[in-house]
């Protein structure tokens, strides 16, 4: 449905590099604390419309009460932790491919959002956050007067 790495931008500056720049900086801040290092987790998709932006992330096994979503103007931060099994004595792993533990991800959104009207849902392992555009950031139509 969506090809990988498909994006388009409307402004003059490249918002993709903005997001990645912010992400790299945050990752550097947290490097070495045992979190996911230098890797963007979870994978996110961003859908855009005139009035809002929807961010979806695949995070199966999220601990709902430990999830933290915070917004500052046009920066969204998602952090939380995935459940990880604690094995008792005598139990052992045959295979371990899933990763558990803490993660944090920061995104630069294309416009300022109204933080009071943000909705977040977690369903079937997919976290989706709907962020409506702030009124003051909406484009204003300017009428052109003709003589």
């Amino acid at each position: 449905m969506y090809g990988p790495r498909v994006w388009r931008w409307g402004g003059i500056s490249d918002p993709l590099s903005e997001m990645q720049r912010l992400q790299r900086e945050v990752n550097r801040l947290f490097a070495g604390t045992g979190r996911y290092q230098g890797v963007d987790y979870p994978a996110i998709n961003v859908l855009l419309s005139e009035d809002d932006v929807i961010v979806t992330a695949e995070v199966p096994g999220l601990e709902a009460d430990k999830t933290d979503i915070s917004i500052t103007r046009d920066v969204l931060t998602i952090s939380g932790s995935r459940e990880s099994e604690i094995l008792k004595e005598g139990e052992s792993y045959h295979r371990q491919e899933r990763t558990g533990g803490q993660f944090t991800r920061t995104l630069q959104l294309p416009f300022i959002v109204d933080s009071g009207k943000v909705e977040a849902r977690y369903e079937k392992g997919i976290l989706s956050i709907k962020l409506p555009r702030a009124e003051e950031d909406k484009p204003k139509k300017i009428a052109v007067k003709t003589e």
Partner: protein
Amino acid sequence: MEEEKKEFQKQVSQTPVEQERTRSRKTYVPRVDIYEKKDAMVLLADMPGVDEKSVDVTLDKNVLTIRGTVEPKVCKDHSVYYTEYDMGDYERVFTITNEIDPNRIEAQVKNGVLRLTLSKAEEVKVKKIAVKVS
């Protein structure tokens, strides 16, 4: 950097051509954790977008197949701005040993994680055969 990213992205399944499916949807290999408890094996599979109605677990002789189907979310009026993942179905096949009792497999799905508890078969009791003296 690209290699690191690949590790966390979903792995596209490498189904051989003969096993084509009726749907032309992408199929992914879900990541699993398998660990062994005293009397059971536990398998956890990451399948975001799947709930108990869209998951399929079948055991055919010694072959365990887990399948999940995902309905892609369509958001009207929204255009794609940035993507890092694609949505698709999941499938993975395992061969299990005779250690597992095929009648005692429990499955549950919570938040996109499938949890299978495969109880181990009770040990076959050794029968002592009495030898009669003729």
